[in-house]
């Protein structure tokens, strides 16, 4: 449990807030390239500000737009109705890997880290987003909680992996014939190790299996509000939980493929089927009870909300309320990465209030940051660390683009 005062401090992100100041020191996803296909300006609702992407000469700029006070959080007027407010702030923006990022902080924007999602060629990445009606921090926290996958995403039967392209947790666990779904179900108490790194946190979930084997799943928190996790043996997910305002956020994901180019048409089609435009709100949502079906919950899935794990996550984080009341929470051992992350965020807030912005993660020299390693492996329990590393190196070595670390 934390105090209301602390909960406010780490969740609220509008102009002038402390957590908002931390987030503003990093590039923020502002729009998908897909949204800009019909031309600019494109409305953007980001960090509690009403904005629009425009072009000034060659430069992409995120300018302030006029917006009525009572407009919905995710309001997207068509281009011809957007009026730029030249008295408001404007920010530099930059298109990379299917996303227009903006820098809303002081001073010069930091360089983009050389993570896989930014190094892979355009053919090997695909970007998408989705709207969640909750604060960004609870959306991030579910992504650094490796235990929940054994419950929230539990399938009571294992799906045929033939139909698994572009979906999470449908592969077979590395070097075995065991579907990941079965592994998560059979081993629900992972040991979780958390290590602070130059980019955030490396989170290792160890599921100790029979015959002295251990399943090693490495995921990452990328400061301040992203995660990088494996999706399948072929792809990783780098996902930002971007505040629209205090009570609404988008997930922006770059799917990154190591070996084969991404089938973008299929990836887009799968996801557009589940979302509406222009606000990318999921079709399964609180208003329709996430299509909750008690009969399905009894037989097929843990939630009764279908096979799409994004919907499970959305239910979990939206059900907490617009801003999770952390004065009532009881964190356990499974929440060790969440506890560590909040400590980092509070340290960053303290550093900024002491005028030490260069003490924040990735604000100094980031030349050495690669990867991050993000994968599943099964290894002899004795040397799981080396085995996890070796599996990652093997995949990188076989990759047609430079994924060296």
């Amino acid at each position, binding site marked *: 449990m934390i105090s209301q005062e602390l909960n406010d401090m780490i969740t609220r992100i509008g102009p002038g807030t402390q957590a908002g100041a931390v987030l503003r020191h990093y590039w923020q996803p502002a729009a998908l390239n897909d949204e800009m296909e019909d031309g600019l300006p494109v409305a953007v609702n980001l960090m509690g500000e009403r904005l629009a992407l425009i072009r000034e000469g060659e430069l992409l700029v995120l300018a302030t737009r006029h917006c009525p006070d009572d407009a919905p959080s995710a309001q997207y007027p068509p281009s011809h109705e957007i009026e730029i407010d030249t008295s408001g702030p404007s920010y530099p923006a930059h298109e990379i890997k299917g996303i227009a990022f903006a820098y809303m902080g002081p001073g010069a924007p930091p360089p983009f880290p050389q993570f896989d999602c930014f190094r892979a060629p355009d053919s090997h990445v695909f970007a998408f987003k989705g709207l969640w009606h909750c604060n960004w921090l609870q959306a991030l926290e579910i992504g650094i909680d490796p*235990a*929940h996958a*054994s419950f929230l995403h539990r399938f009571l039967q294992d799906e045929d992996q033939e139909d698994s392209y572009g979906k999470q947790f449908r592969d077979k666990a590395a070097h075995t014939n065991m579907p990941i779904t079965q592994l998560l179900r059979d081993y629900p*108490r992972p040991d979780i190790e958390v290590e602070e790194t130059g980019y955030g946190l490396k989170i290792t979930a160890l599921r100790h299996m029979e015959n002295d084997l251990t399943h090693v799943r490495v995921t990452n928190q990328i400061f301040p509000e992203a995660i990088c996790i494996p999706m399948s043996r072929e792809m990783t997910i780098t996902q930002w939980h971007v505040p629209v305002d205090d009570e609404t956020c988008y997930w922006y994901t770059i799917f990154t493929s190591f070996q084969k180019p991404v089938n973008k048409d299929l990836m887009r089609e799968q996801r557009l089927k589940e979302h509406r435009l222009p606000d990318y709100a999921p079709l399964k949502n609180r208003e329709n009870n996430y299509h909750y079906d008690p009969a399905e919950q009894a037989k097929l899935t843990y939630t009764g909300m279908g096979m799409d794990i994004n919907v499970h996550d959305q239910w979990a984080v939206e059900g907490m309320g617009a801003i999770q*009341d952390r004065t009532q929470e*009881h964190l*356990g051992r499974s929440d060790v990465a969440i506890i560590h992350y909040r400590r980092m965020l509070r340290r960053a807030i303290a550093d900024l209030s002491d005028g030490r912005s260069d003490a924040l993660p990735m604000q100094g020299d980031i030349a050495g940051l690669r990867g991050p390693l993000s994968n599943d492996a099964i290894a002899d329990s004795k040397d799981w660390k080396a085995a996890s590393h070796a599996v990652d190196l093997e995949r990188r070595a076989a990759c047609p683009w430079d994924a060296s670390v």
Partner: protein
Amino acid sequence: METNTSGQWVIVAQSHQLDRSRPLIPVTLDEKPFVLFRDEEGKLGLIGRHCPHRGADLCYGRLEDNGLRCPFHGWHFDRYGQCVEQPAEPEGSRMYTQIKVPMVPVKEENGAISAWMALEGDAR
């Protein structure tokens, strides 16, 4: 929980509302969210709607093992709101013994379900 004798019984639902394969409905008491369910013994539980772990909505919980299980991490609660299992916590952890969801006493008479509404604070 201490019962405040200056409180009163208030009808919060009709028994027939729970006549379905999954006997569980949301109930709002004093503007606070609760969930009313019937366990496998047929007994009623009226407990806080948000899981005390990280606040997930127990209205979508799994009615199983004679109680209500949160789909987020499998924390399991009996009809008194007592946590009886935390399957993601380490083997041997006793943390669950310290975890309780707010619980309101209920009674069922003549097809009506009533909750004991204390005047002050004890039914949070």
